[in-house]
């Protein structure tokens, strides 16, 4: 695009065209912002053309072309490293002037007056927002069926779920509707749908990417992450989004390495631990097989692969289903019909509150609010919430101890491949199992990626690589090496819904 071989306008038009033909079936987008995307693309094309004319002039005087900036300049716009690249954003990130619903009736038609920090960062480097993607309501769900509006379908098999809750983002990338998309990961919501849809999904260290503007589900677990086709794209988007944000008090003040620069580095000698708790019962044989094969490939690359143990893994699911609903019950209290979004009138203020919330929230959200309210209630706090936090510390310590011996941990992303739509909707507990391999990572706040590593039943299987806090670079390095060694992922081209 910099060289003028491809115009941003053409790229946006092609994405919009593909979306127009496929999204009726897939249900990836809740809101398309095509007109504004085209306008922005035209502006960026102009800017790029002007920059080319100028640098051509400079070239004649003998100056050498400058190397691309190491860090994106937020004010660069057309000159930024993502100039002219369209993307989609999960509908729980605030976008100024563009509807943001969190997949919920309670926020239907809500238009935020401000941009999330990540959206600002992407806009600053020239990326073009194409639209907002479908999701499980308030990011609660693992199948994409909990959206209040319509379900999203898996591009590999439209009778199957795409995984959740970043369902629309994962499916949109897998179906080639956009080059990349943003998701949010509270218990696996980027990695698990990435695994189901056969794309790359990354959950950074807690605090690595600003949460400002991400509509909170469970504040201590939420983290924004990219969904991309390749590890290199993932590194590029991470480079743009990572870093300290003064508007987020939990944002880490840790320097951001140039992730794209670490990709080619050798992985020989890396010590990889494979927690046995992630490979046992409950993991589908086809998934286990694909992951075993991937471990073999990593060993062939010169990594030392060894079985290890994270003994408190069994408690992670229970801890998560206390901590996340507790935080959610408080975070979601603001949706009461007083200031914005849905309002259902009642005789008095209390009736208005409860009618609004009953009508506005779907069953899964209501279930978790009640669970969380109960866990925080006087008399139960110590037994549930406080106890859960203590066990959470044990889960975190498991990882600390493992990372004292291993550089990275490797495991399946999901115990299964994509299941059929409706298959688990009446059984919340079996649905909760879909995140069993990803949840401990959120409890510990560490980074992890899911990359395609093979197939089972003709559907993609995801490999999860976990690292110690702020080891994003190392994870990307290993993921890239694996991706290269396995020749990319041929099953991705098969996507034709």
């Amino acid at each position, binding site marked *: 695009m910099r060289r003028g071989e491809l115009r941003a306008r053409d790229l946006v038009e092609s994405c919009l065209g593909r979306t127009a033909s496929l999204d009726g079936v897939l249900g990836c987008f809740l809101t398309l912002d095509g007109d504004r995307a085209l306008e922005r693309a035209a502006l960026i094309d102009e800017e790029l053309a002007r920059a080319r004319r100028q640098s051509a002039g400079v070239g004649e005087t003998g100056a050498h072309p400058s190397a691309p900036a190491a860090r994106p300049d937020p004010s660069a716009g057309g000159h930024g490293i993502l100039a002219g690249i369209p993307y989609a954003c999960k509908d729980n990130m605030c976008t100024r002037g563009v509807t943001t619903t969190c997949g919920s009736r309670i926020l239907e038609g809500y238009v935020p007056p401000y941009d999330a920090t990540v959206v600002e960062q992407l806009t600053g480097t020239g990326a073009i927002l194409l639209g907002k993607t479908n999701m499980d309501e308030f990011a609660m769900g693992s199948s994409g069926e909990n959206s209040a509006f319509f379900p999203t379908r898996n591009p590999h098999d439209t009778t199957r779920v795409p995984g959740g809750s970043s369902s629309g983002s994962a499916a949109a990338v897998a179906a080639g509707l956009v080059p990349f998309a943003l998701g949010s990961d509270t218990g696996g919501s980027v990695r698990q749908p990435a695994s189901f849809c056969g794309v790359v999904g990354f959950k950074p260290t807690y605090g690595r990417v600003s949460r*400002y*503007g991400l509509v909170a589900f469970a504040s201590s677990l939420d983290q924004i992450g990219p969904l991309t086709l390749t590890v290199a794209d993932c590194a590029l988007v991470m480079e743009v989004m990572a870093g300290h944000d003064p508007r987020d008090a939990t944002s880490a003040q840790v320097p951001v390495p140039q992730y794209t620069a670490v990709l080619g580095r050798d992985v020989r000698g890396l010590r990889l631990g494979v927690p046995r708790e992630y490979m046992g019962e409950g993991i589908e044989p086809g998934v286990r097989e694909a992951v075993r094969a991937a471990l073999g490939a990593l060993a062939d690359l010169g990594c030392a692969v060894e079985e290890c143990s994270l003994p408190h893994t069994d408690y992670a699911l229970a801890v998560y289903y206390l901590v996340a609903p507790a935080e959610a019950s408080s975070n979601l209290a603001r949706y009461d019909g007083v200031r914005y979004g849905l309002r259902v009138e009642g005789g008095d203020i209390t009736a208005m509150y409860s009618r609004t919330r009953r009508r506005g929230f779907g069953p899964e959200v209501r279930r978790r609010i009640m669970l969380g*309210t109960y866990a925080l209630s006087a008399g139960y706090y110590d037994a549930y919430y406080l106890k859960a936090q203590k066990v959470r510390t044990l889960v975190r310590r498991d990882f600390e101890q493992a990372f004292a011996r291993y550089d990275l941990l490797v495991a399946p992303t999901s115990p299964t491949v994509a299941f059929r739509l409706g298959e688990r909707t009446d059984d919340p507990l079996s649905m909760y199992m879909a995140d069993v391999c990803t949840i401990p990572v959120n409890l510990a706040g560490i980074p992890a990626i899911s990359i395609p590593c093979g197939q089972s039943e003709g559907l993609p299987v995801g490999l999860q690589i976990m690292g110690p806090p702020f080891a994003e670079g190392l994870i990307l390095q290993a993921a890239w090496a694996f991706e290269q060694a396995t020749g990319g992922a041929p099953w991705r081209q098969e996507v034709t819904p």
Partner: protein
Amino acid sequence: MSELSGGGRESGVPAGWEAVIGLEVHVELATASKMFCPCPTRFGAPPNGQVCPVCLGLPGVLPVPNRQAVELAVKAALALNCRVATYSKFDRKNYFYPDMPKNYQISQYDLPLAGDGYLEIPAAEGSRKIRIRRLHLEEDTGKSMHAADDIVTARYSLVDFNRAGIPLAEIVSEPDLSTPEEARLYLEKLKAIMQYCGVSDCRMEEGSLRCDINVSVRRPGERAGTRTEVKNVNSFRAVERALAYEIWRQVQLLEAGGEVEQETRHWDEGAGRTRTLRTKEYAHDYRYFPDPDLPPLVLDPTWIEEVRRSLPELPDARRERYVRELGLPPYDAAVITASRGLAEFFEEAVSAYPQPKAVSNWVMGEVRRYLNEHGLEPEDIPVRPGHLAELLRMVERGTINTRVAKQVFGVMCETGRPAAEIVREKGLEQVSDEAFIDRAVEEAVAGNPAVVADYRKGKEKALGFLVGQVMKATRGKANPQMVNRLLRDRLGPPGPA
């Protein structure tokens, strides 16, 4: 804080009973911006004129603590002899309320910023320590205005969020107070200390100092009875009255064989009584839990010591200094130092006119009278201290007499102009022209033969009347000493003794 308790004065507690009183005081911190966002905190802005996504609690926003608020709260804590915690945290207090944007309030629960302090109030035998249990930071809520008497019958309500997110320090005393008067003395002292440290302007009429009262009664030697809470009592006078009423009400109930119910009551200033706001059955379960958006507040002990060193001289120290160094009577020193505004005015005036007692007389008399008559705070004295000093110098030099000086002071207050200008313009200079005064004396003697006769009969008082006549004739400008001397000269010694 003029009269001390005891000595047979009506204490507000019926004979045979004791009251146990604790106060919870909310002090608005004098920060430039709100507790968790950059919005300004000016009083009197148009409704919702000082709001942003953060203090409106819009979806996706995050709080970032205000350093200045933390520093002011630490100052307040140190000035109240509290232990400041090097590790405290922010918690969410969850409850639904239409003027609370997030439906939870960020406060500090089990680990407050500071505690274990005290302040001293004047008592019959010198002073008495009132212990401070805790001091913590929290954010204020917005303000509802109902189109009726209350929220239930209102056809509609409007909410102003300008106050939402204003930083507050909540200061909770131990139940060490035993009379309404002590409660007032405590509040007055607290206010003075807060003002001295620049922690708060403590303008009660603007709500920057608010008080909740906890009170119970008992027979001497018995355990404290059931207590009630009286909310939002917002003037010193109201605190005294509300307490006296509530103590009387509880004693009446108990003496009639009834029981005091544990409940929250409201002080109705107009009716001069408290009434039930909510009973124990409706007590909230606030479901406190640590705010996951805010990391713990970790303070460096050396920084705390720096803040301690930066504390200004506090009221007690200043009072003692006035007695010791300026030779002020303890009573004067106590009255003047009770308010930072008054003390500062006094000190500046003394530095320009180094006669402390003369200045004190004026501050305690004319200055306070003017403030009381116009309902002004000491910070709002409309006269500059230097101008008062000039006025006093004019009295000392004999340019004007004290009577005229008081008139001039009134004009100075109204116009803010310097004394000399007013005196010159109105021709108020004291007249010491002997011939001119003697003419007036002659006229007074000639015109009042009966009074002169009384004087000659030995009625010394009659002389005062004649002085008055002369002053009247000279429009108050005559030198009083000269008038006296000339009158005596003319009348001779008072009559045959």
